[in-house]
């Protein structure tokens, strides 16, 4: 069975990547299981997805603990222990990292003995709006590394997955993915299947007796005040509300009252300002402002232009 794990950040198309690779294996006649793993957080948060493929029915489920291939779409995740990129990686595991640094640098840095292959996909991406293409690119590279997926099958897998996005998106993704596929030629077949955990000599789980602990310790209550402010929900935003202060007539209440997150403050002169660390980008203020003084700007564009001069 092939066991493959994708790691990336929300918004980089990891789910799409796993589904493209899943489609491709399926297209080659494999039994397949693929799934994303979402947490409570969204864009920008570390997420992963996985694919299992085998010639016979798959009798495993859930998280892959001993991967044959780990694909990392965002190299900033590798050193973050919480992202679990290196979980279960051993000398058999191939690590494919989308990075500008060399494989040797990573091998040293991580002190791992298994093969490390790099894919400098980010170099081609000048515009942040293109980041979602990274998923398909990674899937393309992965498809070549397993050595059992044809070029045509990969192209079909992408067409199937992105069907509802139209020809332009499909072509762009196919182009990137096939380029990555070709680039991995020398590594074709590096990733090999591995068997199931034997029931003869396995590492015994160290079960422990859970002791009773009084409710003052064991109740799941967070005794801390006002710490939700530390969660920067502004990272979830894909559209940014930008106030045109020329047009704003300082009604002082409409936008600040309707904002469901209470992130619009009103100054003494009645002029509103938005806390972008916490604005989730719901666009309710945009809809409610009577003189249409708030504009919805795509977040990437806003960050590029440094709109409103505040923290992203």
């Amino acid at each position, binding site marked *: 069975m092939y066991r493959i794990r994708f790691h990336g950040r929300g918004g980089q198309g990891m789910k799409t990547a796993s*589904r493209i690779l*899943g*489609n491709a294996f*399926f297209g080659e006649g494999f*039994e*397949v*299981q*693929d*799934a*994303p*793993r*979402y947490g*409570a957080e969204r864009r920008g948060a570390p997420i992963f997805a996985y694919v299992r493929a085998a010639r016979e029915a*798959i*009798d*495993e*489920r*859930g*998280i892959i*603990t001993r991967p044959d291939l780990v694909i990392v779409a965002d190299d900033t995740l590798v050193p973050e222990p919480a992202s679990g990129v290196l979980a279960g990686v051993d000398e058999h595991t191939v690590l494919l990292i989308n990075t500008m640094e060399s494989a040797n640098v990573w091998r040293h840095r991580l002190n791992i003995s298994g093969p490390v292959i790099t894919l400098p996909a980010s170099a081609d991406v000048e515009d942040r709006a293109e980041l979602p293409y990274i998923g398909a690119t990674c899937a393309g590279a992965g498809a070549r590394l397993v050595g059992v997926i044809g070029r045509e099958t990969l192209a079909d897998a992408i067409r199937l997955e992105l069907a509802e996005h139209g020809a332009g998106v499909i072509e762009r993704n196919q182009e990137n993915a096939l380029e990555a596929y070709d680039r991995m030629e020398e590594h074709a077949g590096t990733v090999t299947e591995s068997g*199931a*955990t*034997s*029931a*003869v000599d*396995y*590492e*015994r*789980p*160290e*079960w*422990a007796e*859970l002791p009773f602990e009084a409710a003052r*310790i064991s109740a*799941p209550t*967070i*005794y*801390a*005040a006002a*710490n939700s402010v530390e969660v920067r929900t502004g990272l979830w935003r894909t559209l940014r509300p930008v106030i045109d202060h020329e047009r704003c007539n300082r009604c002082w209440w409409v936008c600040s009252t309707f904002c469901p997150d209470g992130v619009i403050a009103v100054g003494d002169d009645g002029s509103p300002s938005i806390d972008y660390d916490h604005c989730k980008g719901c666009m309710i203020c945009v809809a409610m402002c009577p003189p249409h003084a708030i504009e919805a700007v795509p977040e990437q564009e806003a960050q590029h232009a440094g709109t409103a001069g505040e923290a992203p």
Partner: protein
Amino acid sequence: MTRALLTGNAAAAWGARLSGVDYVPAFPITPQTEIIETLACWIDNGEMPGRLVTLDSEHSMITAAGAAAATGVRVFSATSSQGLLYAMEMLYTVAGWRAPFVLINVSRGLASPITLESDHNDIMAARDSGFLQIHCATCQEVLDSTLLAYRLGEDARVRLPVIVNLDGFYLSFTREPVEIPEAEQGSRFAGTFDPENMRFRATTPESQAVAVLGGSPYSYFRYEIHLAAENALTVYDELAAEFAGAFGRDYPAVEAYRTEDAEYILVMLGSFATKAQGAVDRLRDAGWSIGLLRPRLLRPFPAATLQRLLAGKKGVAVIDQNLSMGRGGVLHTELLAALYGQAHAPPVVASFIGGLGGRDISAEEFYEMADALRRATDEGRTPPPRLLYTRDEIREMRKLQAVAHVEREELNERR
């Protein structure tokens, strides 16, 4: 017939579509929302007839489902976890109306603490509601069980609503190859709903649910629900045979995997049984005489089948992904009740609790459970229930507690 990769949620939506549902009252909740999104999309595109209405809560949603079913149309709905609990009053109520429909539950652990991930405490909470329950292990089974559930609930010998249960994440968001029957094949099996005397109409108001004072009439109605639910065992077997004939897929009330010559048996519900099946194969490779039983029906409880399949076995390990506080695993308790006093009942029926809130059960843990079972049968003594938890997990928990402690101290200082 098309074979495609589908999530459990998409498979549930396909089940509804192929069953020709007329009405879908809906309310979103993770990890179920994809089901109603898929149906909404199909209905909107004109790919599927029928009507989808979003309600203001799960409580209203189940009320609408029951009321619509009582008009004689085919009704489908879906929920999960807190949503199922919020609807609980109406689950009991509409089951008493004897108006059949199908409700999908995507299993998810219950608060507190709140989680998004899977276990079976939500569906167990609906155990005594009068809804029948079918538990699925694969995405294919989700689609097929939905078709089966309509026939089962609508049968004149039953006429009760049915819950089809699938595990959140492990099935809901996981794609697997699923054979999607042709529309014509689906509707041939699903047939048309014969609502008999159910003719609830807004234009001709009638009383749907009467009040009874006095225990005797009340008992009559409640006993009748119970008898109907028990009938569902026979009806289910007939339908499963018909389904196997039509689609070539066999869904007995209790799935038995390599049990015939086995001395030891694992028993569990739901998608983790796939993992248990893998473990059985590896254990067999290692010389074990072991098998797996997976009840697909929890209500009605296939007690006689389980008695038969377990007769003469040395030991049984029941793995529960639920926990009844102060008692233990619900399936374990139910199985013990079915086995007690039976001739040739296995002498050891051990209990393991695990997989709560999405916690994995590793292959190694399955092997270890088998080993613990063998030791117990050698000693001839049933061990106390084992709450699956490792030393590493305790260590991680201690770290979290340390962080919480520091937070608390800081807060105290600030005050």
